[in-house]
């Protein structure tokens, strides 16, 4: 066990300072404004500036467009990016899943230039998993891909393709054998989103984040863009999915977050910090400083217990816990501060420039991102508790309803 501060070498300390200074420079106010307006989780200037230094996927070797960072250096970069703004970096995380599959399963002659573009921040990839009527069952994909010689023809539509409008490629689940059992008839194809026949329609969520429906109409894709074998898509998918859902045994000497929901908890943590700052200045109806008010002290204490629970609960359980505690405490903190907690960014009197108001909206999405909490409870029931599966007519695997 070790929860100590990471002891940095002189070199790492210098790197940390360099990173911090560089990020402070590229995260200009219009980056935040742009994200606030678009909700895309992506900023081309930031991504390209990072990519130019090999800092977008800095753990990759230099020849793959990374910077050959050690685990400690990679962690420094992660935390410094979070210190700036985790929202803008969302597509960085989303891309990393298909990048791993592309690297593993595609012909290097095709894959390498694509991966380099991604590492350079000039391309991102999105996940074409869910479908409009698919619910949580991504293995039930109906988007059809038909092969004719070297070309695939793709028809159908995908839902919740977050980032499609700014991505170069989508990592698409296609149905290639409608007769086979559902897990055995799917193939993964990396589809260039500039292709003819692709139409992208925005879906706005009330946290301000944008996602998309993507329609595919006779879209032509060369067979070289296939990722893994024909009808072997389930295996290919599992690579990234296992990464996303992994129970998270720590392989990095404690340099990764223990809970999948740590990012969600940071939104709660930011709210707590803003409420605490506010309580140091605001006074109650009898003139008492709110930081001395037992109600404020207890509410912050209760939020802190939940925050600690959210970041300490391992793996997929942490994902459920983090969402639960964020939903509960975002509402409780809004109650605590009163009507001013309803005021958003850029309004007179809002707390933490709208952080409390934002957290309450954002919280709702966390119960759905990357699979609803119900889907994860089902996974926990089977894989942690070893409970038998429900014998539902279409059941085989419940997975990931909404992908980032």
């Amino acid at each position: 066990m070790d929860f100590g501060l990471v002891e940095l070498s002189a070199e790492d300390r210098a790197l940390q300072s360099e990173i911090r200074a560089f990020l402070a420079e590229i995260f200009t106010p219009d980056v935040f404004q742009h994200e606030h307006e678009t909700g895309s989780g992506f900023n081309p200037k930031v991504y390209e500036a990072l990519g130019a230094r090999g800092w977008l996927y800095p753990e990759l070797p230099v020849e793959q467009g990374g910077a050959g960072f050690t685990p400690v250096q990679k962690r420094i970069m992660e935390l410094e990016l979070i210190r700036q703004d985790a929202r803008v970096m969302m597509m960085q995380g989303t891309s990393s899943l298909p990048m791993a599959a592309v690297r593993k399963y595609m012909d290097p002659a095709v894959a390498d230039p694509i991966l380099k573009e991604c590492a350079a921040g000039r391309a991102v990839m999105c996940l074409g998993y869910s479908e409009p009527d698919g619910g949580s069952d991504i293995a039930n994909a109906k988007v059809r891909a038909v092969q004719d010689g070297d070309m695939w023809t793709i028809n159908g539509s995908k839902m919740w393709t977050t980032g499609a409008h700014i991505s170069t490629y989508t990592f698409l689940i296609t149905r290639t054998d409608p007769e086979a059992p559902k897990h055995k008839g799917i193939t993964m194809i990396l589809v260039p989103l500039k292709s003819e026949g692709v139409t992208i329609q925005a879906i706005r969520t009330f946290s301000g984040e944008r996602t998309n429906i993507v329609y595919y109409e006779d879209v032509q894709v060369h067979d070289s863009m296939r990722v893994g074998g024909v009808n072997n898509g389930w295996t290919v998918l599992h690579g990234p999915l296992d990464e996303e859902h992994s129970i998270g045994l720590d392989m990095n000497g404690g340099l990764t977050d223990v809970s999948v929901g740590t990012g969600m908890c940071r939104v709660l943590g930011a709210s707590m910090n803003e409420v605490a700052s506010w309580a140091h200045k605001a006074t109650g109806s009898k003139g008492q400083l709110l930081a001395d008010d037992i109600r404020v002290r207890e509410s912050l204490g209760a939020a802190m217990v939940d925050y600690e629970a959210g970041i300490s609960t391992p793996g997929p359980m942490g994902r459920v816990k983090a969402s639960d505690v964020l939903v509960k405490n975002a509402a409780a903190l809004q109650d605590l501060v009163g009507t001013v907690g309803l005021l958003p960014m850029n309004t007179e009197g809002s707390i933490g420039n709208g952080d409390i108001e934002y957290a309450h909206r954002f919280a709702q999405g966390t119960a759905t991102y990357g699979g609803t909490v119900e889907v994860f409870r089902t996974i926990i029931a089977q894989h942690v508790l070893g409970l038998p599966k429900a014998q539902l007519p279409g059941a085989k695997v419940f997975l990931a309803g909404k992908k980032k």
Partner: protein
Amino acid sequence: MDLVELRRNDYTLEEVSQEVLVAFGDFFSDQCPTSLVRASQPLGFDQGLWDRLVEMGTTTMGLPESAGGDGAGMVELALVAEEFGRAIAPAPYIEHIVTSRALAAADNPALVEILAGAADGSRIVALASAPITPGAKQLVPAGAIAKDVLAFVGEDLVLFSVDTPFPHVANQGSTPLAWWDFDSVSQRTVIATGDEALRIYTRAHDERMVLTAAALVGMTEYALGLTVEFTKTRETMGVLIATLQGVAFPLTDIATNIAGARNIARKAAWYLDFSPDERPELPAIALVYASQTATHGTQQAAHLQGGLGFTVENDISMYFLRAKGWGSIAGDPNALLATIGDQVLASVK
């Protein structure tokens, strides 16, 4: 508290109340589709809807006959509030009604003109949430559309009047909130003072809590209905999701909370009408419980529609975003709990 008091528990509505419920239910479903609610964002006020509400007699029904009203009681007003909340109607029904009733209760000749304007809906009136302290602005519910705001200052109940309301401040619930700088308002009418002032002010707050509670009940019930329908048509793994206990059980809990919150709101309204000196904690209980019901109920209802429940296009988003705000405007739930607890403590003294 007396656990075996020989009281009636009769929730049966009188025929006339039933008619009010149906009439306003019809009115809001005809006149206030969700498209109108959406179009009125972010201010949360639609003049056309307000005019039609006035035509319905909404602004006069709750005034005493002496003030040209119909003398309806809190029970009827709460039934209207439930339908109002079901439609999340962009109109200052609650603020305006409780404030006009307070003005009428003051029975002050200086108010005749303003009261007439309030009765015919041409002048929207509102109620401050806390006593005025010099140097501090206040967020006033309906303050962006009201020209007259009733507020407690020292020992006095004062009506502050302006020619143009203060500017709207954007907020999660899309309600017409505004920061009022009361210091800058010179037109002031003292409408009551001392005990009478406190009595009128407390009553107005109690009425606001009860009507808000009823509105939150209607709001949550509509949101629940949207999701119940969704779960009856959506499949996963070859079954309707409504048949999964992980979906059905949370829905039953929302329905359970709504049923109780409705009964409490109506009971609290009845006490204000018929037995106002007993159970002084009931309006606060009604508000706290309805707020919990609405916060939890709209959140779960939105969530059980999965990703779709998180989209702006889905009407349920408008319900979720209002649930917390409407409750918050009517009272601070934590502070109310302590005053409710005081009644329990007093009952065993």
